[in-house]
């Protein structure tokens, strides 16, 4: 076991971080944060696309783990880009670099609010018994205004997917597995940044003549949140390494459960300022809010995991990667 990146992975990771880091700055409008629910990081998207990072998983010697690095690091940025749908889900589901951005949705969610659907060029649809790969050209799609720090869209009319490209029933569990991984990685990235941002804030902000972060009531909760964030990261990376369904189910369940405490605490510690759009916290925490319920949320992951682990009444399996 070696939990550090190997030489090739480190070079790749460093390259990703080098591109993402300049975009970690909070978007400003004069002295304050630009008061928007979200901002799409067009420049970051363009730079990563030029470097072909969104097809990283398709390069010889690379795969899920390398795509996971990209998804995690981009999720840490305050500005959002679509990375998981292209680099992880689309690439590993089809073996192709699909026209991007890529939106991924269950059939029943299409008329509701789907992340990145307002600008997606490809839509991957979980139809329940099949997976459809759909070009969004000509689809009746409208943006959805939300507080959730992602661009979102919905399909306005019932969509006929009968002529669409299908991947077959066996692609359904694979799609869900990759979606779980994406959720776990995006959650881990956004959660770590929300904690980092809050940690700096409670060091700087003073109340009753002391930094907010000097109160033990704050310290213990933030420390417990950090433990959750690190757990999210390592569970997600193990799942990306192993590509084992149970590992991804565990990672997603843990991540979606952790969101509740981390979101509550980080907002409490940022006070009323954290509720304003002139403070940057919502760029991460309101992404976490929507990730919390993806794929049915923690309850659904827990149900699936129980079936995977203990479904057979006569046996008690253990995680393959242990």
């Amino acid at each position, binding site marked *: *076991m*070696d*939990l*550090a*990146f*190997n030489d090739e*992975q480190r070079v790749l990771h460093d390259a990703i971080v080098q591109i993402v880091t300049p975009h970690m700055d909070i978007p400003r409008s004069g002295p304050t944060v630009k008061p928007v629910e979200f901002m799409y990081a067009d420049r970051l998207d363009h730079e990563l696309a030029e470097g072909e990072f969104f097809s990283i998983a398709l390069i010889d010697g690379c795969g899920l*783990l390398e795509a996971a690095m990209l998804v995690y690091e981009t999720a840490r940025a305050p500005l959002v880009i679509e990375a998981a749908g292209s680099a992880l889900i689309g690439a590993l589901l089809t073996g192709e670099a699909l026209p991007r951005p890529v939106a991924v949705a269950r059939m029943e969610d299409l008329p509701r609010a789907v992340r990145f659907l307002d600008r997606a060029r490809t839509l991957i649809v979980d139809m329940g018994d099949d997976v459809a790969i759909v070009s969004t050209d000509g689809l009746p799609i409208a943006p959805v205004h939300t507080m959730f720090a992602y661009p979102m869209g919905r399909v306005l009319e019932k969509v006929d997917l009968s002529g669409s490209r299908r991947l077959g029933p066996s692609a359904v569990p694979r799609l869900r597995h990759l979606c779980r991984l994406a959720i776990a990685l995006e959650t881990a990235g956004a959660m770590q940044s929300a904690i980092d941002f809050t*940690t700096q804030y*409670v*060091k700087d902000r003073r109340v009753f003549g*002391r*930094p907010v*972060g*000097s*109160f*033990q009531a*704050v*310290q*213990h909760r*933030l*420390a*417990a949140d*950090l*433990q*959750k964030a*690190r*757990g*999210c990261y*390592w*569970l997600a*990376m*193990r799942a990306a*390494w*192993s590509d084992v369904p149970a590992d991804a*189910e*565990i990672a997603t*369940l*843990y991540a979606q*459960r952790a969101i509740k405490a981390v979101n509550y605490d980080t907002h409490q510690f940022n006070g009323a300022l954290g509720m304003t759009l002139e403070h940057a916290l919502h760029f991460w925490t309101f992404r976490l809010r929507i990730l919390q319920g993806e794929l049915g949320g*923690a*309850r659904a*992951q*827990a*149900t699936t*995991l*129980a*079936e995977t*682990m*203990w479904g057979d*009444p006569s046996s*008690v399996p*253990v*995680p393959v*990667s*242990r």
Partner: protein
Amino acid sequence: MDFGWTTSDDAYRAELVSFLTQELPNNWWDSFAYDGPSGPELMNNAGSFNRKLAQKDLIVRHWPQAYGGQDAGAWKQIIVSEEMWSRGEPRSSLYLGANWAGPAIMKFGTEAQKHRFLRPIADGEVLWCQGFSEPEAGTDLANMKTRAEPDGDGYVINGSKVWTSYAARADTMFLLARVGATGKGGVSCFILPVDAAGITVRPIPAIHSPHDFNEVFFTDVRVPADARLGEEGQGWDIVTTILHYERIGAARYEFSRRTLDHIVTHLKARGLFDDPAIRGECSKALAEVEAARLLTYVVIDGRAKNLPPSADTYVARYSMIQADHAVANLSSTYLPDLLTHDGDGMLRAHFTAAITAGIAAGAAEVQLNMISGRYLGLPHGA
């Protein structure tokens, strides 16, 4: 990044499992291990068990060759801990010596001390206990009062220690005592036999076990100068170094993982696992356990690379506590009748270990303090 075990790791685990399967009796949980590693039956068994373990060279293979090991490294050590702790730790408190007292002696001891103390650990001949906490100094360990007064060519120790696991049956104690100054700078380490003249051990019945806790009284206990490990006043440095090993030395997550499977077996037998809410609770507990496993592996990875101890240790320990409690709560909520004295030995052993997890090796709140200060860099309170 590679989360897989090496072929060598797998072979080592297989060797251990084979040994344990052969050596542990069929009624192991219900007749030996139900009361934890300090239970009388388990401690009685530990002597012969440990000697057989030593014959197979399975106690200190992770130690350096110079001290009787094979330089097998930190990953082999955690494999041993996983296989032992998940079986109720059949070595009893030998593990204290193998995990951290031995390494502390290697790092801080004289050649004579290494010669005297390390071989008996490797040979499985000595059970250890640690004399740290005192009636007025538990979490606030630096407030300890037990004194070692220089006297001629040695020291005279007076004071008391409390909540001392294994002391009633242990051979050797790793003791913290104060020489001179108050505060952390006055703490020194001593290694002494528990049957030394002037030491009295009073068992303290506890909710988790009638045999674990003890109070240890020191009345004019005379020890030679070479009972001191390190320099006078170096004790705090030694103990903070070795506590990194102690905090994650016991692979609690593995015991929780296997106990969870055992709980599921019981729940299925009773038809309770048909309840989707209960299945979900089991899954949530599993996720906590696996997080604790990986956060521990992060620490082991650093140790395997000889990196200095870091705040990751506190993160891992806190996670272990959450995992232990998540699994223990399943037992007490759905299978309380199996936690009785004639219930299920494994469930009982796990439950009693779990309810002490947030106190042992530094309270959970101490771990959070350390994460706050050393990981997050938050300022001290007023």
